[in-house]
């Protein structure tokens, strides 16, 4: 024996696996997917739960999402594969369960997001940008375009174009998307920074004057803010509400509709470089969660400083109380529209608008990216026809899955914009459905060491324990409980999701999609069985001994 050495591994010349998306790109992807510049929280929570504290609610959402995000970091390193949630759940719970839940509640329900992202692009990106440009340049054509973009036909055409352009970009190669994502990232950061700056450099009194002038130029209305506030008060908005703790807790599920997407990069885990490295997944998932929560808090603080509690409540009343007096150019007072009203510079308006337009476009891209990866994984497992899993030799992308998803989105886009009660009947389940997938994946993480023992033992996270209990089980259990709380809120709280109309219809739609998923599963199972193949083989772990 001699001195202590720090031995290195020896290697030989052997081929190796290399992946494409850098952890930084995946980090950006998650932040953009969380849609930091579409914070529904500010429009929804202040009047749905009067007296709630926005900042505290966002912090609650962060705290509730944190164990879910940590649990995902374990799953993503143990199973760094494309099709993330489907792979996790099918591995731990079995193929029938994993397929049904992820196909029904992600692949089917995210079609609503394709339609919604088109609406975001039209109503929150193009419409306010052109309205703002119309006001700041006095060019009427801009106002006309902005007004058209907010009509149902305008939204449908813009939504179809949005989905078609995303289809072409993604089919042409994932690397092209990754490259364009940097453009979107910096444009969105700039846009968000300017919005923050505008809020931080104004005060409520100045806001009243400027927003009156802005709305007057667009709609010809006088004393816009005073009228909107009066209408909100008449509609039931309390402008001096006492602090409401339960309401603040209920802000968390709303903020969670943004923050829950911190885990979405797992759907393309097979394409992320060094996806099996623990610190990379912590950076990608937990890092993006913390960064987005921080930005949301910052925006809440800035808005409170710039437009005050009254301004926030008036903006919210336009959405939650359908207060028509609180709309500008027919659109809700999202932070970007308010910020545009605070400036007289068309350049600033254009910069803000481009950020929102690009983030809307990114959202439709991430719908395609995540869901087509899931469809490819399900196709390879034999639970969807092989056609879905084919990767084009020319483009090296799953072209068939992309085209299928585009075609499936078309009727949803029309329904979303042409059926009057679509959002209160057909689309209400989306917050529940998407949240349920993530909550069940947290449970899958908790059970991973017991239901997929060998897989877990080979994973880098296996060395982290609290006493004898695997850390992933602790975080997964906490995540499942927190997720169940929020998903339960979407199910039963009137101000959130399914209980909004007190009708059974939205529940039937959710159950219907689950039944649809089950039917697809059993049909594919029978088709495979007729060829002498059991689909269960796709998930069952072979005992090594």
């Amino acid at each position: 024996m001699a001195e202590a050495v720090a031995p290195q591994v020896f290697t030989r010349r052997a081929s190796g696996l290399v992946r494409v998306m850098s952890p930084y790109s995946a980090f950006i992807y998650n932040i953009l997917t969380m849609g930091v510049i579409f914070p529904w929280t500010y429009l929804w929570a202040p009047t749905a739960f009067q007296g709630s504290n926005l900042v505290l609610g966002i912090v609650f959402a962060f705290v509730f999402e944190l164990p879910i995000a940590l649990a995902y970091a374990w799953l993503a390193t143990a199973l760094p594969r494309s099709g993330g949630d489907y792979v996790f759940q099918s591995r731990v719970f079995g193929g029938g369960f994993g397929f049904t839940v992820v196909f029904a509640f992600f692949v089917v329900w995210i079609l609503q997001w394709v339609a919604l992202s088109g609406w975001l692009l039209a109503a929150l990106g193009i419409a306010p940008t052109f309205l703002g440009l119309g006001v700041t340049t006095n060019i009427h054509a801009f106002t006309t375009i902005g007004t058209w973009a907010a009509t149902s036909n305008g939204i449908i055409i813009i939504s179809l174009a949005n989905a078609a352009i995303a289809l072409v970009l993604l089919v042409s190669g994932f690397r092209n998307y990754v490259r364009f994502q940097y453009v979107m990232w910096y444009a969105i950061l700039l846009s968000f920074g300017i919005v923050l700056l505008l809020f931080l450099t104004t005060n409520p009194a100045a806001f009243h004057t400027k927003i009156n002038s802005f709305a007057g130029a667009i709609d010809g209305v006088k004393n816009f803010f005073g009228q909107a506030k009066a209408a909100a008060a008449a509609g039931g908005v309390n402008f001096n509400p006492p602090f409401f703790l339960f309401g603040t807790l209920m802000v968390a599920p709303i903020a969670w509709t943004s923050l829950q997407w911190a885990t979405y990069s797992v759907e393309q885990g097979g394409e992320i470089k060094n996806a099996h490295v623990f610190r990379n997944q912590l950076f990608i998932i937990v890092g993006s969660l913390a960064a987005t929560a921080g930005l949301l808090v910052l925006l809440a603080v800035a808005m409170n400083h710039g437009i005050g509690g009254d301004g926030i409540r008036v903006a919210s009343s336009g959405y939650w109380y359908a207060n028509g007096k609180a709309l500008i150019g027919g659109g809700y007072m999202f932070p970007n529209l308010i910020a545009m009203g605070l400036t007289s510079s068309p350049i600033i308006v254009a910069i803000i608008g481009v950020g929102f337009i690009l983030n809307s476009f990114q959202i439709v891209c991430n719908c395609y990216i995540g869901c087509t990866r899931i469809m490819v994984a399900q196709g390879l497992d034999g639970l969807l026809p092989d056609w879905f899993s084919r990767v084009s030799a020319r483009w090296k992308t799953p072209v068939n899955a992309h085209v299928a998803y585009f075609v499936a989105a078309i009727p949803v886009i029309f329904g979303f914009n042409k059926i009057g009660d679509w959002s209160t009947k057909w689309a209400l389940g989306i917050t529940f459905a998407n949240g349920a997938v993530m909550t069940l994946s947290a449970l899958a993480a908790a059970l991973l060491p017991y239901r997929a023992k060998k897989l877990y033992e080979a994973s880098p996270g296996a060395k982290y324990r609290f006493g004898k209990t695997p850390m992933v089980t602790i975080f997964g259990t906490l995540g499942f409980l927190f997720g169940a709380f929020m998903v339960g809120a979407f199910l039963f709280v009137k101000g959130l999701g399914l209980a909004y109309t007190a009708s059974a219809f939205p529940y039937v739609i959710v159950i219907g999609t689950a039944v649809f998923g089950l039917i697809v599963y059993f049909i594919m199972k029978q088709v495979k069985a007729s060829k002498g193949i059991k689909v269960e083989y796709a998930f069952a772990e072979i005992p090594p001994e």
Partner: protein
Amino acid sequence: MGLFGKQGSPKGEPTRLFYACDIHGSEPTYRKFLNAAKFYDVDSLVFGGDLMGKLLVPIVRDVDGGWRAGLHGQKHHLTTPEELAEFKKRLDTLGFYWFECDPDVYHWYEGHQDRIDQKFDELAKARLGEWVELAEERLAGTHVRVYLCGGNDDTDEVLTALDDAQDRVVNCENRIVPIDDEHVLVTVGYSTPTPWETPRERTDEEIGEVIGKLLAEVSDPSKAVFNFHCPPLDSSLDTCLKLDASVWPPTPVIENGQPVYYGAGSQAVGDALDAYQPTVGLHGHIHESRGATKFGRTPAFNPGSEYGEGVLRGLIVAVRGGEVVGHQFTSG
């Protein structure tokens, strides 16, 4: 009843094959491969090459009585025999070879690639020998045979361990062997040149010649199962990042700020699938390019590989009368 217990005729039960490849020394993955016969109820186990592991971990005895080793860029200081056993088990799962040594032995190897390569061959050959024995033992008394061959990452020296095959194990390297009464397995383990300059690379022309020679002995190529380690060129089964071979280790080629993808397969393999229209093409080599495609009537598959996670990725193929009647990717 035919020699292998299955008819494989147009009217009979299909012959069910389980195919996997690129397990790179992973002990649990190989054990899963053997158990796949019973688990998936198949008639044959076909391996598509790349048996050897890629890393060798020296576990150096420490002055304080413990052990030190490196893994995944982290330093490990093992203080108890239990920790040591757990660490070795993890290395086996990952497909890494290991040996215990004193610091002076470690220094003897350090920086001497020829000595390291020799140690690799020694340990890999021993492990492959154990694997052949294990297969004979586990499949004894069944009708199942396991067909083993090398890939581009395996050295010829290590593959000599396959010569010890007796009853249940078939060394199918560069051979034509029957898998039922009417289908034959044609195996070629070479790949086209890679940036890694691995031991068994051949030019496309050389691979074409090897395939041509083998197929000359096959009376009905439509009833041949091609077990070619290298996938066909630009087929979607061979997509990977383009690497710059002028540096070591090779690094991704970046153009306009983005890595470049390309097809790393073999034109000769694609030409053979087109020309001979076999029953099926089974391929591996590119771990990240799991998928299926078609060459005329012939389906071709690459099940991919995740041996490092202890996961056995594979493919069940049911063949009858020179056709694939069903297939299923697996992830066990």
